[in-house]
């Protein structure tokens, strides 16, 4: 189900080896994580709440020290000024000085980062905040703060963007806009590591996806790879007879039953042939249609099952 993770070392923007974070003796937030993010891609980092996504991201920017293992980000250790100078990050929600305006908050960050303040109007415009830039951030909605967080991440014109749940607090239109924006950033040559628990968000913008559960990467690949091969869904009576007949056909990899439906892993072009065969055999076919597992199906399977890593 997963794509090969090997890539030339030069092509890797983020690389972790057995990256581990423990809190005390019992809590393992991140467990021997091996993450590879390639240059120029949008890498979706999926996982349920508490899976270890944010802890991983915090380690990648040096806010949290790993207990074991190591990571390289843009060729530098996490948190090294040389690396951070080329990274824009929004980690676990935006945090700004409430008594400063959006513009002044960016001014503070630009001065710390050694970035020309002339970039500020541009990034404010990119996230659609120019009109409210002079207002104190205490008056901003959650969505506006999120936008300002993305603007802050863009200040350094970074090669790598690490965005943790960037659409939190945005309305549906804002979410769609943000997805489009993230995609455009990647199309402009940037690498984006996008953490989320929203399947639709990842499905629409990510080139590759890593799924983390209990601190470990349990699957990695393109969205298409994770969703697996398309197949057919067949509703027919008698179901057992239909399953037997379909299973005897050449090219059929598997037939499984689910809620009165048969899930058939087969080339979807065979739908008509299967339908004809079943009807000729006296089986009543009420529905037959192509089906591909959604990323949500895959995610739920990966993050709720007890199975081991899918790699």
């Amino acid at each position, binding site marked *: 189900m997963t794509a090969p993770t090997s890539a030339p070392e030069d092509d890797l923007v983020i690389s972790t080896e057995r990256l581990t974070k423990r809190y005390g003796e019992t809590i393992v937030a991140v467990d021997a994580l091996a993450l590879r993010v390639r240059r120029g891609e949008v890498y979706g980092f999926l996982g349920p709440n508490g899976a270890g996504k944010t*802890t991983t991201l*915090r380690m990648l*920017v*040096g*806010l*949290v*020290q790993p207990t074991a293992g190591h990571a390289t980000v843009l060729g530098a250790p996490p*948190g090294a*000024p040389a*690396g*951070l*100078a080329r*990274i824009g*990050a929004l*980690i*676990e*929600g*935006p*945090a*700004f*000085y*409430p*008594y*400063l305006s959006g513009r*002044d908050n960016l*001014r*503070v*960050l*630009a*001065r*710390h*980062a*050694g970035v020309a303040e002339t970039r500020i109007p541009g990034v404010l415009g990119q996230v659609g905040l120019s009109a409210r830039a002079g207002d104190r951030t205490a008056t901003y909605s959650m969505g506006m703060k999120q936008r300002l967080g993305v603007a*802050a991440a863009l*200040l*350094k014109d970074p090669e790598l963007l690490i965005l943790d749940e960037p659409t939190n607090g945005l309305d549906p239109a804002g979410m769609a806009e943000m997805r489009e924006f993230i995609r455009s950033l990647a199309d402009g040559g940037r690498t984006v590591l996008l953490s989320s628990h929203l399947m639709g968000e990842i499905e629409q913008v990510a080139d590759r996806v890593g799924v983390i559960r209990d601190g470990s990467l349990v699957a990695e690949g393109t969205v298409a790879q994770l969703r697996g091969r398309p197949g057919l869904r067949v509703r027919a009576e008698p179901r057992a007879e239909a399953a037997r007949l379909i299973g005897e056909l050449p090219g059929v990899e598997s037939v499984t039953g689910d809620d009165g439906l048969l899930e058939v892993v087969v080339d979807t072009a065979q739908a008509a042939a299967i339908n004809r065969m079943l009807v000729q055999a006296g089986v009543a076919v009420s529905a037959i249609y192509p089906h591909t597992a959604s990323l949500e199906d895959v995610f739920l399977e990966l993050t709720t099952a007890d199975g081991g890593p899918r790699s």
Partner: protein
Amino acid sequence: MSGSVNAELLVLRRRAATWILLGIWTFLGVFFAYILPYALNPEDALGLEEFLPESLAGTLIAGFPFFGGVFAFMLGVFALGSEYDRDTLKTLLVQGPGRTTVFAAKLVALALVLIAFVLTVFVGGAIASVVIAQIEDAPIVWPSAWLLVRALSAAWLILAAWAALGVLLGVLTRGTSLAIGLGILYALVIEGLLSAFAESISLLEPLTQVFLRANGYSIATALGAPAASIESSGPGSYGGPFVDSIQALAVLVVFMLGFAALAAFALRRRDVA
């Protein structure tokens, strides 16, 4: 580094707490040094000369070791502790200047703001002393420039030592509330009560001599602050013994640098989670 200092100055300048503390401290510093004691009865209290411009250095600096220290302490707590409260520390650190640079910039900005805390009280005190001199028809004679420079420097050092303690507690407690609580506990209960008991329990005397209070007041008295006013200054009172002024300077410098170094160490080592 200069960019980070400018950033921190912008943050401090726009923070309401900075101006509120500066305003209250300036008012109280002048009020308790001049207005209140003069209004009550200057002749019976300290003598008119304490309120005249010539005694400016000694009269004002007596308010720094405790009252001024508490304000500087709070400023120090806000400088670092509020970064944890608001989670803005992570926003700063991912910008890339490095933890030590961010911390150093905060200290430098704080040190510069403390200069304002010293100057405003001295300006306010100078105005009050001139007004009193005119009311009393007394001559306006200013202290020597050298005495003023020493008083201003000592006042800044006293505030800086307290601010560094605030910074340390802000970092250690990762916030403002507990840090301020601990600071008040230290200033009032530990330093205050132990200093009071030291007058009757000789075993405590060596301990109290390393307190911020003892060393701050020792410098103040060396610069002309009347010991009588220090002994009767309410919760910040101190009855001695006073230590040598050089020793007091050294202790305050060691405290200031030690608190700052410990805070820097903790900030560098600990996770920002």
